C-alpha cells in the first residue's frame, strides 16, 4: 500500500513534468521520428522516464477507416505520426516489450485502470494533438500476478492482525457490557499518540521503553473510563442505544482533544520509514512489518490462552453468555468488566502503535479511519465472540488489501463495508456467533 501510493505520487509528478515538456516539444517537432508526414493532421508525443527520454520505443497507432502506422521514438523520446482525419479517435499503443527492462507505462491518475500503455486520443478541430506516456518502475505491468497476490496477502495479513488486536477488545467489551463502543477508535489512537508524546519527551532511543509505558497508560485510560463513566451508567441501568450515543459523544470529545494537543498534521514515530528488503521476486517487507506481525501473533496467542484457561478469562466468557446467571453464580461482574475494559484498551493501544507504522504516521483521527473496519471485523466474526473477531479481522484485512488488485485503491475500504452490510443481512450472528444473540 505504501509503495503503491508513493509510486502514484511519483507517477503523477513525472507525468506533470512530461506533460509540460510535451507542450514545449510540440513547438519543435522537427527532431521527432516522423511517419506519414504527407498527411494533413498530426499526433505527436513523448516517452520519458523521470525526465530521461527513452529512444527506440515502438509506438503503434490505429484509427478508423483502416489507418495503421508504426513509429519509433527518437533520441529525445519523441514521435510524430501524420493521420488522415481530424475529429476522429485514434488508439496509440506503446509496445512494452521495446521498453528497457524493469520499467513500464504506469497509470496516469486521470485515466486510471485502463491499460496505461494503450491510450485513445481524439484529434480535435485544431488537427493536431500531443500525448504523453507516463513511465516509471513497473509496479503494475512488470510485476507478475503471483508476486502481486503474495505481496497483497502479506500486507493484508499484517493489516488484519493489527485490526484483530483492536477488534478482540471491542468484541470483549460488547460481549460483557453490550456497548457498541464508538470511542474504541480513540483508544486505538491513544496508543500511538501516547507513544509519540513519550518519545518526544524521552528521546528516540528509548522507543522500546516508550511503547510499554504507552500501553500501561492505555490500560489506565480504559480503567479510568470504566470507573468514571461506564460503571456508573451501568448502575443506572441505561439502555444500549443511550450507551452507544454516549460512546459517540465521548469519541468526538476525545478525538478533538487529541487534535487540540497534536494539531491537524501527521507525525511519524521513529523508524517508520524503515528500509524494505526483498523476499523473492518483487515481494518486499520491512523489518517493522515482520516485528509487528510477530508481536501481534504472540499477543493474540497469550490473549487466547488467558481467555480460555485463566479464571478471569472463563468468568469473562461466562458473562458474555449470560450476565445474570454469571452474577448469581458468584462472579463479580463489575470487577471482571473493569478488567475487560483495561485489557481491551491495552490491546487497542497496541494496535494503534502498529497502525501508526502501517499507515504510516500519527494523526488525531487515525483511529476513526479504521473504526468501521474494526466494526466490520467484529460483526463478521460474530459480535461478542473473541475468536470470531480474530478471524473476521484477518478476512477484512486481506479483503481490503487484496481488493486493491481489482478496484481503485481509494475504494478499497468500500469492499469491507459492503461485506459488513452483507453479513448483517444474511448471517447477522456472524461466522462464529450464535443465532440467539440477534434480538
Amino acid at each position: 500500500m505504501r509503495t503503491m501510493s508513493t509510486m502514484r505520487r511519483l507517477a503523477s509528478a513525472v507525468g506533470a513534468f512530461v506533460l509540460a515538456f510535451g507542450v514545449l516539444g510540440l513547438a519543435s517537432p522537427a527532431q521527432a521520428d516522423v511517419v506519414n508526414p504527407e498527411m494533413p493532421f498530426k499526433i505527436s508525443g513523448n516517452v520519458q522516464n523521470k525526465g530521461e527520454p527513452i529512444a527506440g520505443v515502438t509506438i503503434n497507432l490505429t484509427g478508423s477507416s483502416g489507418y495503421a502506422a508504426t513509429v519509433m521514438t527518437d533520441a529525445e523520446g519523441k514521435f510524430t505520426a501524420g493521420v488522415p482525419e481530424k475529429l476522429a479517435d485514434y488508439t496509440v499503443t506503446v509496445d512494452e516489450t521495446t521498453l528497457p527492462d524493469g520499467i513500464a507505462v504506469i497509470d496516469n491518475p486521470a485515466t486510471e485502470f485502463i491499460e496505461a500503455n494503450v491510450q485513445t486520443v481524439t484529434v480535435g478541430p485544431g488537427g493536431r494533438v500531443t500525448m504523453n506516456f507516463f513511465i516509471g518502475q513497473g509496479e503494475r505491468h512488470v510485476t507478475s500476478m503471483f508476486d502481486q497476490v503474495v505481496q497483497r496477502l502479506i500486507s493484508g495479513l499484517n493489516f488484519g492482525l493489527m485490526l484483530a488486536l483492536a477488534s478482540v477488545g471491542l468484541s470483549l467489551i460488547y460481549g460483557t457490557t453490550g456497548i457498541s463502543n464508538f470511542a474504541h477508535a480513540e483508544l486505538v489512537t491513544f496508543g500511538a499518540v501516547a507513544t509519540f508524546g513519550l518519545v518526544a519527551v524521552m528521546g528516540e532511543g528509548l522507543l522500546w521503553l516508550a511503547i510499554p509505558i504507552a500501553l500501561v497508560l492505555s490500560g489506565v485510560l480504559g480503567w479510568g473510563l470504566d470507573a468514571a463513566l461506564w460503571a456508573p451508567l451501568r448502575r443506572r441501568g441505561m439502555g444500549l442505544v443511550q450507551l452507544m450515543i454516549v460512546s459517540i459523544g465521548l469519541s468526538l470529545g476525545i478525538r478533538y482533544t487529541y487534535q487540540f494537543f497534536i494539531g491537524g498534521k501527521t507525525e511519524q514515530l521513529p523508524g517508520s520509514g524503515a528500509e524494505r528488503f526483498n523476499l523473492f521476486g518483487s515481494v518486499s517487507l520491512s523489518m517493522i512489518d515482520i516485528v509487528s506481525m510477530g508481536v501481534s501473533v504472540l499477543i493474540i496467542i497469550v490473549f487466547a490462552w488467558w481467555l480460555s484457561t485463566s479464571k478471569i478469562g472463563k468468568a469473562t466468557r461466562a458473562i458474555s453468555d449470560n450476565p445474570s446467571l454469571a452474577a448469581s453464580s458468584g462472579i463479580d461482574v463489575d470487577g471482571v468488566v473493569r478488567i475487560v475494559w483495561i485489557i481491551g484498551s491495552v490491546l487497542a493501544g497496541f494496535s494503534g502503535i502498529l497502525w501508526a507504522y502501517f499507515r504510516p504516521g500519527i494523526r488525531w483521527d487515525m483511529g476513526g479511519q479504521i473504526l468501521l473496519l474494526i466494526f466490520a471485523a467484529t460483526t463478521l466474526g460474530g459480535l461478542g465472540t473473541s475468536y470470531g473477531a480474530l478471524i473476521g479481522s484477518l478476512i477484512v484485512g486481506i479483503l481490503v488489501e487484496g481488493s486493491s488488485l481489482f478496484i481503485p485503491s481509494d475504494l478499497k475500504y468500500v469492499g469491507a463495508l459492503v461485506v459488513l452490510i452483507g453479513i448483517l443481512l444474511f448471517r447477522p450472528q456472524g461466522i462464529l456467533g450464535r443465532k440467539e444473540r440477534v434480538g
Partner: protein
Amino acid sequence: MDFLGIFTSSISFIIAPTTIAYALATLGLALHFGFGGLLNMGMAGFMALGAYGYAIGILSFGLPWYLAAFVGIAASIVFALILGIPTLRLRGDYLAIVTIAAAEIVRLMLLSSAFGGLTGSADGLSGFNGPGGTVTNPTVGAGGFNDSNPIPPGDYGFVPFLDNERTWYLRIVGIVILAIAIFIVWRLVNSPWGRVIKGIREDEDAVRSLGKNVFAYKMQALIIGGVLGALGGLMLAFSTNVNSSVYVTSLTFFLWTALLLGGAATVFGPLAGSIIFWVLQAFLGLVFPALAEAGLMPFTTIQAAQIKYIIVGFALVLLVVFRPQGLFGNKKELTFVK
C-alpha cells in the same frame, strides 16, 4: 476584544443557511429516531446524495436547477429503499452500524477518482448555481439558482441580519422549505400514521399484532426522513460548493447532537436544537480564539478554535445521561425505548 462583533456574528446564525440545512436534516432524524425509533447514523449520506444529485444534475445532465433538485431528492429516495429493504428488520444498534457504513460507502464513492468525471472527486463540484457557469462550459449554470433570485441587488435588513440579496434569497427559500417541512411532519406525527409509527417505536410486536404492516410504515418513515435529509443537503448546495469532505460521519454526529439538544420526539426541537447548536458553535468558535489572542487563555488561537468541538462531544455525553428527552422534550414520551 470585540465582544459586540462576536455577539452579532453568533446571533446571525439564527437564520443562517447552514442552520436551516441542519434543521431540515435534523427534522428528518427526528422522524426516523424520535418518532419511528429508527437508529439512522447515516444522515450525512442522505445529505450528500441530495447535494451531489443536484450538482451533478446541473453540471453533467444540463438540467434546470429546480429539476436538478428533484434528482437529489430522487437519489435519497432510492438510497432509502436500497438501505431499508434489507435492513429494517435488524435490531436497533445493527441498523446504526449498517447506516453508518452505507453513508461512508456513499462518501468514499463520491471521493474516489474512479468517478472523478462526474463527482470531481477530492475537489468536489462548483459553479452549478450560476450565474456565469463553469470555466469549461460557460453555458452550464446560467439560469441557475442564483439567477432565479427576484430580489434586486443591494444590502437589506439590520445588524446582525444585514446581508446582500443572495444571502436573503437563500434564507427566504430555506425558511419556506423548512416551514413547509415542519408543517408536514407536524401533521404526519399527529395523524393515524404518526400514531402507528410511535407505536412501532414503543413496541413493534404489539403494532404487528394489530395487523399493521410494520415494515411498510418503517420504510415510509425512512423515505420521508431521508428526503428531509436530502433537502438539508440541497440547502447546503444552494449556498456553496459541494465537497465530499463535508459529508463525513462527524456531520451525522453533529446532527444527532442538535437533535438530542432540542428533543428527539418533538417537531420544533430539531429547529431549536439546530439554532442553539449553531449559535453556540459560532460563539465558542469566536470567543475562545479571541480570548487566546488577548492572552487570557494559555493556548494558541488554532487550539482555541478546536475547543468548541471538544465541548460538542462532551455535551452530547452529558445530554444523553442527564436530559435524554432534550431541552424541549417530554420525559413521558420516552426517546430511548430499547
